[in-house]
């Protein structure tokens, strides 16, 4: 899944920020600290042009966090602990925001630029590509079955297996085969040197946002 725009940050910066937010989030212990941290990262994500992704991710992560927090509250009767749980889900959601804005093609190119073997960069590109393909294939097969008069019932898992799972597996295998063939027949070879049509360069904005994130995170850790 890729929600990015032309203004997305450099893919390696997106990866760095995702990991950085996840790890630094683990160091935030106090509720106030976590709250300010989330607020700060929201500002960073907005500055990076990821407002729409933020909205979509929070639509999924906030209800999940609320549910887990409710369960945690019912078990421990600790309100502050439950609120921290919600906030931690928020931090997890924020890491996803940056990951979802990685353009797979640019990522593959930037990995090549830092001399990562093309075999690996291409594998990453295809893996990224496969997530929306999987989603699309599930949608198409479900729709195609509906058209053939199949009705899905939760009490009949065997039907899901036969009507959804099997065609999906066969289709995925076919796509993998064709894709692998298409890559080879279009000249890909690990033994040959390739060129890069476009270079993905770091911009001043990338450096500024990375610097600001690191500085802000350290400040929150020190001040609160």
């Amino acid at each position, binding site marked *: 899944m*890729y929600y990015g725009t032309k203004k997305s940050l450099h893919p390696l910066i997106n990866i760095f920020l995702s990991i950085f937010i996840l790890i630094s989030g683990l160091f935030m212990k106090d509720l106030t600290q976590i709250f300010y941290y989330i607020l700060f990262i929201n500002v960073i994500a907005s500055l990076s042009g990821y407002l729409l992704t933020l909205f979509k991710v929070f639509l999924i992560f906030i209800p999940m966090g609320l549910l887990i927090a409710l369960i945690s509250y019912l078990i421990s009767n600790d309100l502050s602990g439950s609120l921290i749980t919600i906030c931690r889900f928020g931090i997890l959601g924020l890491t996803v925001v940056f990951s979802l804005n990685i*353009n*797979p*093609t640019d990522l593959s190119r930037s990995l090549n630029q830092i001399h990562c073997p093309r075999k690996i960069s291409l594998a990453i*590109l*295809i893996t990224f*590509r496969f997530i*929306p393909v999987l989603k699309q294939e599930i949608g*198409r*097969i479900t*729709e*195609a*079955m*509906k*058209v*053939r*008069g199949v009705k899905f019932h939760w009490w009949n898992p065997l039907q899901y297996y*036969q*009507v959804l799972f*099997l*065609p999906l597996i*066969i*289709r995925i295998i*076919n*796509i993998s*085969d*064709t*894709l*692998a*063939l*298409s*890559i*080879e*027949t*279009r*000249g*890909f*070879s*690990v*033994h*040959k*040197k*390739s*060129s*890069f*049509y*476009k270079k993905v360069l770091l911009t001043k904005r990338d450096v500024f946002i990375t610097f600001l994130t690191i500085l802000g995170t350290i400040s929150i850790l020190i001040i609160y």
Partner: protein
Amino acid sequence: MKTIVIKDLYVRYPSDFAKVESQNYSQKNVTSLKQKSNNHVLNDINLTITPGEFLIISGFSGVGKTTLLSCMNGIAKHFYRAEIKGNVLINEKEINNLRIGDISQFVGTILQDTEAQIFNLQVEDEVAFGCENLGLDPDVIREKILKYCEILKIKPEAQINKLSIGQKQRVITASVLAMEQDILLLDEPLANLDFKTANRILKYLKELSLNHGKTIIIVEHRLDLVIPYLTRLIWLENGFIVDDLNQEGAIQKYFNLFNHKPKELVHESNEPLFQINNCNLGYKKKIILRDLNLKIYNSEKIVILGENGTGKTTFLRFLAGLIKQKSGKIWRTPDLRRNTFKKVGYVYQNPNYQLFMDSVYKEIGFQSKDETITKEYLELFNISHLKDQHPFTLSEGQKRLITIAAIASMKPRVLLLDEPTVGQDYEGLNILINTLEKIQQKDGTCIIVVTHDIRCASALGNRVLWFEDEKIYKEGDISLVEAYFKKNY
């Protein structure tokens, strides 16, 4: 420039695949060939293909056309692990000793399944991929992207996931053409293309072969489309080359194999099945079809024509109840409203999505639940000999026929067919058209077909809808088919 020499070639797949390949539609004159074939997919192939040839490989479904092509780019040997006896030489070099990636430095290949070949998000990235692998300079790659996107009429900055299947076919074609290899192997490259684009590509390929000495080898069923361009036609039957003809010979023997005149239309009732008033159709914010005003009646046979991306599939999805209009109103007869998915049968462009049973017999019988109906439809579509086969082991043309039979056996009041003739040889095409006519006459089914196929467009309907510029550009009788293909030639 490179010469291809194939000497005493015999190919056999290591599994039961060979049996499947040999069970094809063509029942004419193949019994003796079958006995000789000993489960080989290809038998006794001897060919010399010189630079500049425009060669078409044709024949009925499942006779080994794709296998022959895949022997010339190493796929049969290295990917499918086929047992290969004999030699395939390109410039006296045995290509089965080379890796696919190395062969592709001078042999370009377009595979069948368009969508599965694409993995980039943007058109220019997909076109650039092959050139990057050849190690070309970025400025040269840029030039090639612009050149081939212009030839194929696609925007380099377009997002691939927003393109129609025909437009995706253009992207993959541009990607292979941009590599500019000496030999081009194309497996049904015109299947999803509109007539205008198909002709544009064929003209360009002809120029490549004529003026630049490139060898063009195409597997194609639509002979009417390719015959004006070819220099040589090879006709395969059950893995044997039974005809090797020049253009004149090909015209005499294989032109206009299909000849079918539709019967006159008689409206059974005055009440329409669908009444569409001022409807706009589209996805998200994009409008694809505007101001649709249309009535569709029982027993009608409608052909929808139009270039790639003009909203033909969107219109079928709308009639099938899979998408809703953005504005306007659609009225459906109560019977269709109550039971949309059973009463409006929709056969997809890609048959792989609608098959899920482990035999053709079970596939047809899935909804009908009645053995008599299952047998009736197996016979009607002339697929009784495939009844025990797993649908996924059949050729694309055969799979398409099975999905049509499976959905027709549900006896819908409306049958929507999206490119049903893709991958159909002339025999399959005749069976399909005759069967659709029988179904329409017997059950009064309204049949609506989207097609780019010049071979049979006029045989598929009595009423024509021509989509262009986000609307129904013209509506009329069958004479419109000729006007459409004339305009787009």
